[in-house]
């Protein structure tokens, strides 16, 4: 009877400790960046007009294990209030109800669910991310290419605290009609296709 108790206790301990052991090398990177280096560039090339803008209100976290990049998960959030174009009238139109409706939809979210076609060379990993992109309240499954660069111990050069950096670059295209952004309207001036360039770095202090 005592032996049975010992076995049960051993299993209970093993189950309790297992997740910690499995995730022992997973590093959680925080993408909040007060310096506003993290950014998303958006480009629209319509027959009558080209629009390019930026957004720097990036936050979110990514769990990354340098030894097992396939297990990468996380979420990158972009504050829509940070969307910017240099023309003030265009910016006013962009944030209003007809287009991005910033007051109702304050964030754009990209959830990393799975990494496929992972190739690692030195500190750089390329892969296809299978995830979910939510824009203007509409969530769609997406597969986007990504390049991750793991900079071990480099955080001290940037933030003066010891730690690691994870740089994430991704270029992909979406269609505004898929996300209900004034779908099918004014396509001669505002193209349906939006090219996105994600350039972000996350910090993991030790």
């Amino acid at each position, binding site marked *: 009877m005592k032996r049975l108790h010992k076995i049960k206790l051993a299993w209970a301990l093993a189950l309790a400790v297992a997740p910690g052991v499995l995730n022992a090398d997973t590093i959680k990177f925080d993408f909040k960046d007060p310096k506003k280096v993290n950014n998303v560039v958006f480009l629209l090339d319509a027959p009558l007009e080209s629009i390019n803008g930026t957004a720097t209100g990036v936050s979110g976290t990514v769990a990354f294990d340098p030894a097992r990049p396939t297990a990468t998960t996380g979420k990158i959030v972009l504050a829509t209030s940070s969307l910017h174009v*240099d*023309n*003030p*009238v265009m910016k006013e139109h962009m944030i209003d109800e007809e287009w991005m409706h910033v007051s109702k939809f304050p964030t754009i979210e990209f959830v990393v669910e799975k990494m496929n076609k992972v190739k690692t060379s030195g500190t750089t990993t390329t892969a296809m991310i299978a995830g979910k992109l939510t824009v203007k309240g509409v969530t769609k499954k997406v597969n986007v290419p990504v390049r991750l660069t793991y*900079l071990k111990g480099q955080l001290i050069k940037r933030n003066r605290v010891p730690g690691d950096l994870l740089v994430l*670059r991704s270029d992909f295209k979406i269609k505004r009609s898929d996300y209900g952004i004034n779908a099918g309207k004014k396509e001669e001036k505002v193209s349906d296709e939006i090219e996105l360039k994600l350039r972000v770095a996350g910090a993991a202090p030790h």
Partner: protein
Amino acid sequence: MIGCSGLILWLVGGLHMGWSKSTETRTEIDEVTGLEYPVTENKYVLGVELFGATLAVSGGLLGLSLAFRNPARLDKQPGAETSSTQL
């Protein structure tokens, strides 16, 4: 005058071919991560639409001035006095 002012402002703004801008965004590179990031500063740059508007206004005013200019008076034309005395 209006057209020349528009032309000068457009030239000073660097012959910007797009719409007018109230900010200007340039790209810099973060030394540690190598990431390109935008830096936005407040700067007014005249666009082609306002440059075109200044040219249109100046052209319109020139047209109006030509259309409604005072007709030249006969008594101020050379030889007008002589011809009247002859009659």
